[in-house]
């Protein structure tokens, strides 16, 4: 896949996640739009995972701690062939496996997440196991900046450093907003770089909508031997849709028919410019 095709893929994934949120009349729209570029790069350029043999013990692990942005994950997995895209028509429907948070019943999902502050400790366990078994696969997690106040994250930050887990990559989808408003007003997690460095992590900052920057960071670790890797992806909540960008209500807003049409038009226009 060329870089141009990868960029087009990001637009396609945005269209798809909006489509299925629109059909389901439910979803975490703003956060899915902020992290979908990261997922695109992970699944198309970084992760060693095989949709036909997902359970291979040597696969890279990706555990989405911000489980509520499952729509971004589902459309990415469907596009990579983990399951037919048409399955997503059942999103949030009675008895569907495609629920509002990741579940292992869906091919390609590592762990059931959704409650915040759970992804990283599990990744620490996975990363310790990989070290004990002298395996070279890597472990990735995606954290929301709104979930940083969960104490379990900080317990895990300490232990990842203690065990020198340089095979562990935590990506922060730093979109600066959460359901109530701006993080800094809800619970300030500024200076996260300094905090993480003080906890013994090697930190890089990237533009979370710049695919090259994401790929360069995610494929060139460990940043420092013996230190876990922390990537602050600076993102915009609702990225790609003019009326959603930076607007808190789109945290889990569902577009009306008119808004949906407008969003699709904007994305088609963006496609032409790539």
């Amino acid at each position, binding site marked *: 896949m060329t870089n141009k095709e990868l960029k087009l893929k990001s637009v396609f994934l945005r269209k798809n996640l909006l489509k299925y949120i629109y059909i389901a009349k439910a979803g975490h729209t703003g956060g899915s739009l902020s992290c979908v570029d990261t997922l695109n790069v992970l699944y198309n350029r970084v992760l060693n995972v095989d949709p036909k043999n997902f359970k291979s013990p040597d696969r890279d692990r990706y555990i989405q701690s911000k489980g509520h942005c499952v729509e971004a994950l589902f459309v990415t997995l469907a596009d990579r062939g983990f399951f037919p895209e048409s399955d997503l028509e059942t999103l949030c429907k009675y008895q569907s496996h495609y629920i509002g948070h990741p579940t292992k019943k869906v091919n390609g999902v590592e762990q059931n997440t959704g409650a915040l502050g759970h992804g990283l400790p599990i990744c620490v366990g996975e990363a310790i196991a990989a070290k004990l078994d002298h395996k070279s696969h890597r472990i990735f997690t995606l954290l929301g900046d709104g979930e940083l106040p969960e104490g*379990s994250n900080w317990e895990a930050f300490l*232990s990842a450093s203690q065990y020198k887990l340089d095979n562990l990559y935590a990506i922060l989808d730093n979109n600066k907003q959460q359901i109530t408003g701006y993080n800094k007003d809800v619970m300030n997690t500024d200076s996260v770089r300094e905090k993480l460095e003080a906890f013994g992590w090697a930190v890089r900052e990237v533009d979370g909508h710049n695919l090259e920057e994401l790929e360069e960071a995610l494929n060139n670790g460990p940043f420092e031997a013996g230190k876990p890797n922390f990537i602050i992806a600076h993102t915009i909540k609702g990225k790609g849709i003019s009326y959603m960008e930076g607007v808190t209500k789109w945290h889990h807003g569902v577009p009306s028919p008119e808004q949906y049409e407008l969003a699709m038009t904007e994305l088609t226009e963006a496609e032409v410019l790539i």
Partner: protein
Amino acid sequence: MELDKIEEKVLKMGKANQEVFSQIMQELAETDRDIIAVTSDSRGSGKLVPFGEKYPFQIVEVGIAEQNLVGVAAGLASAGKKAFAVSPACFLSARALEQIKNDVCYSDNPVTLVGISSGVSYGALGTTHHSLHDYAALRAINNIIIVAPADNFETEQAVRLAAKSSKPVYMRFGKKAMPYLDESNQTFEFGKGRIVRKGEDITIIASGETVYPAWLAAQKLEDENGIKATVVSMHTIKPLDTDLLNQLASNGNPIVTVEEHMVNGGLGEACASYLFQKGNTNKFKIVGIPDEYTVTGSQIEIFNHYGISENGLYKTCKELLAI
């Protein structure tokens, strides 16, 4: 100290179940490098110091951080390790409850959660250090086996089975030395209660460290009143051995349950819920810790206070039998 007095003359004394846990863990780790103990500054109270010295690569220390303890254990289990997350039962089953629910049970990562110094083992340390809620909390979570072994034999078997279990297990142990119960009945499987004494007049269903006072009460009933009691170690609180419950209730005898747990949501309520929905009409009494600020004192003093004792259970049985 009635327990100490009688153990010498009636039953052969063993070790604390916690010590047996540690011993079996060492034995398993010797031949299986996937056995991992995960501890939260708890290797001392979990009797795992020798384990850690002998198998430094098979112990993961997370410090005093129970949420991380269980999350890390879930990750280890997901990667194929046989992870035993070891922490005082009070913290493990409360502080890390969401990790147990989601990361272990819901995500189906077969961790063995080992609640040490359970119930009121830390007696005088107070309610912060008591686990009298763990059966109730965990019974309400899908996909977990809850085990409270009574003696060293049950403990050994439970640890061995847990290491092979494809399903999450919670087991709890106390600190006190336990006697060997019925040495002729050496069968053990999860979900199958163990009859440690047979009698035809009344039934006592107990779990964990309360099986011993139940056994002693049965002895006293026999010695002083000629009453013969069946005593069951219902070591698996979930899944409950309903076949055995059917069998026990079928003769219409009174049933006493006893547990080192709140009466709310524990073994007794589990038995009652099953039996009475099936239409049984046996006289029934649940002995446990009532819904109040728990009295202060040592484990034995707390047991005595609430009738979880030889004399207390003796009295309860006599009341039910109206003698």
